[in-house]
């Protein structure tokens, strides 16, 4: 178990603005003891990178109800470029099967589909956060 609560960014990229799902997931992660940084939709890839860095999060959760998950491979590259490879990335929402494979290939840890139990989401995010903390560069050497 981690000593301090996992920090998770829950956000949306691209153009769609439906945020019921992301709000519910944010509440579920809070109820599982995590600190959730919540943003409005329509973040650019660069915004997400900056948020992940400024807020020093362990996990980024992207909610995608339309086709905005198509931007996630680009996000993975940008995170890496910003030396944020340790941050875990999950995607939740409506992601067709073959595109799920593309996301996983790009480095996304997990895609959650509608109807995924909140408990399961919280459990996996928490695990990812613990991994991220281990892999994060140490500030005080």
């Amino acid at each position, binding site marked *: 178990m981690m000593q301090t609560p996992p920090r998770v960014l829950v956000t949306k990229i*691209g153009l769609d603005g439906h945020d019921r799902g992301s709000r*519910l997931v944010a509440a579920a992660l809070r109820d599982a003891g995590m600190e959730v940084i*919540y943003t409005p939709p329509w973040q650019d890839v660069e915004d997400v990178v900056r948020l992940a860095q400024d807020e020093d999060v362990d996990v980024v959760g992207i909610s995608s109800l*339309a*086709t905005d998950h*198509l931007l996630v491979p680009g996000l993975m590259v940008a995170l890496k470029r910003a030396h944020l490879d340790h941050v875990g990335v999950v995607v939740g929402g*409506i992601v067709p099967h073959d595109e799920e494979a593309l996301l996983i290939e790009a480095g996304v840890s997990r895609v959650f589909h*509608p*109807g995924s139990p*909140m408990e399961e989401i919280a459990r996996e995010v928490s695990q990812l956060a613990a991994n991220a903390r281990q892999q994060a560069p140490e500030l005080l050497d």
Partner: protein
Amino acid sequence: MAKSNTPRKLEPDGQQDPDRERWQRDYQAQLPAETPVVNRSGIRINPLYDETNWSGTRYTQQLGYPGQIPMTRGIYPSMHRGQTWSQRQLIGFGVPSDYNARLHKLLESGVSAVSLIPCNSVYRGFDADQVPRELLGTCGVVLNTVDDMDACFSGVDIAQLSTAQNDPSPFTLLALLLAVAKRRGIPWTRITGTSNQSDYISHYVANHMFFRLALPGARRMLVDHIAFTLEQVPGWNPLSIVGQHMQQAGATPAEAMAFTLCTAIQYAQDCIDRGLDPELFFPRFTFFFDISISLFEEIAKFRAGRRIWASIVRDTFGVKNPKAWRFKFHAQTSGVDLTRQQPLNNISRVTAQAIAGILGGLQSLHTDAYDEVLCVPTEDAARIAINTQNILREEAHLTDVIDPLGGSYYVEALTDQMEDKIREVMDTVESAGGMYKAVQEGIVQTRIGESALGFQRSLDTGEQTLVGVNAYESEGVEPPVAVLERPNKESVTQYLEGLDTYKQSRDTPAVARTLDELATAANSERQNVYAAVVTAATAGATHGEIVARLREEFGTGDPLIVP
């Protein structure tokens, strides 16, 4: 009429019926420790309804006849027995030529009313060259210029076709359509249809993607749009007030109805303040609702909403025109109730939802395709969705009798209770100073968020069953692999090139001048901003340019997000 309906039995405060007492005892004996049944709006549901809950003595006062006050039974004398409802399915994908091909297919099948769903880049107020190209045309048609609109309706007589456009403020799509009409020499008086997404408050609160201009600008824009169309495009419905977004975002059915009615009141007041004639604008108001699977609750929601609206327009606003009292609504079956697990089950869900909407007296219906939770609907799934409506109408005979549940003890009692609940929520909005102020304060957003959370908890705990998700799960039954429909990459590239050429080959000074005039109009109380939008579109300005210019003057719309 009411007198001949005097109940045979006694009213609740009178003497108890011995048979009824016996039934109560027997019921208690069979179910001594029953968990209370509560609907989504928070109304406790009895095991049985009888004359103690509703009696025919209030027939005239509460029901009346179809097309008459209090409108509970329907807004037209013949309702579905005469004209059933418009079957509107959403279309919009790829580039204008894709839309046009799909449209011709639909027209061959005999439809006379179509929808136009633009790409999400359009919703956000951008031209195609301003967004990541991976996203173009994936959720709707990319449409930025008068040429694009012309291409969408190529080979189609737009004077014969009613279009429902998903066209948020500042209503650039209608402006482009009017520009096409001008180009084709068709008078605007012959253009018919609806601005489907004109309700900016619902975008500020719930469907944030559509919210383009800051609140005061959006407010001004809507009233100008209504004023303009009333005068210039009289066959156009400039306003559809959308309860659907709020219910999709988590509002209970009663809350969604209440917030929608409060929004309508706000818009009506704004129109009156602007000096528009209520006798003229009220008949042009239409509504758009979500239909959840909570069948009786939805039926009661629609019946109660119809009654409240008639009384608001007639009694509160004092409008004499009976057409204005009609609560005309389109409804869409709720995607929130659909599941990815065992998706064919969604056909049953959509059927139940559609029954609720039909028995609730809708004027127009969209049934969701069963695969909507997996992908953009496939053609097969879309056909089943349409046939669900045909089956309900022509095989199940749902339309033989007007308001067939009228007089049911349960449905009437529930309609009364829903009305109370709706009015209660409306009171909270009114005491906050009306809908505009309430949403600025986040009161509505907070309440919707709480309701969404409450519903999610009921799913998490299993209190509310969701077949295939928290009950009756089938091990090993994987969701089918969805068929991906993504726009052709080459046509997107061609589109972008075409847009570039368009921008270079038009009368640039004229475009610049009309955009400047648009800015001037936005800053002048005396001019109609929407007229300036139409002029700019006609001169060749693109959708994105018009929105950008108005964002400079009015401010960009940032919806209030209450996490």
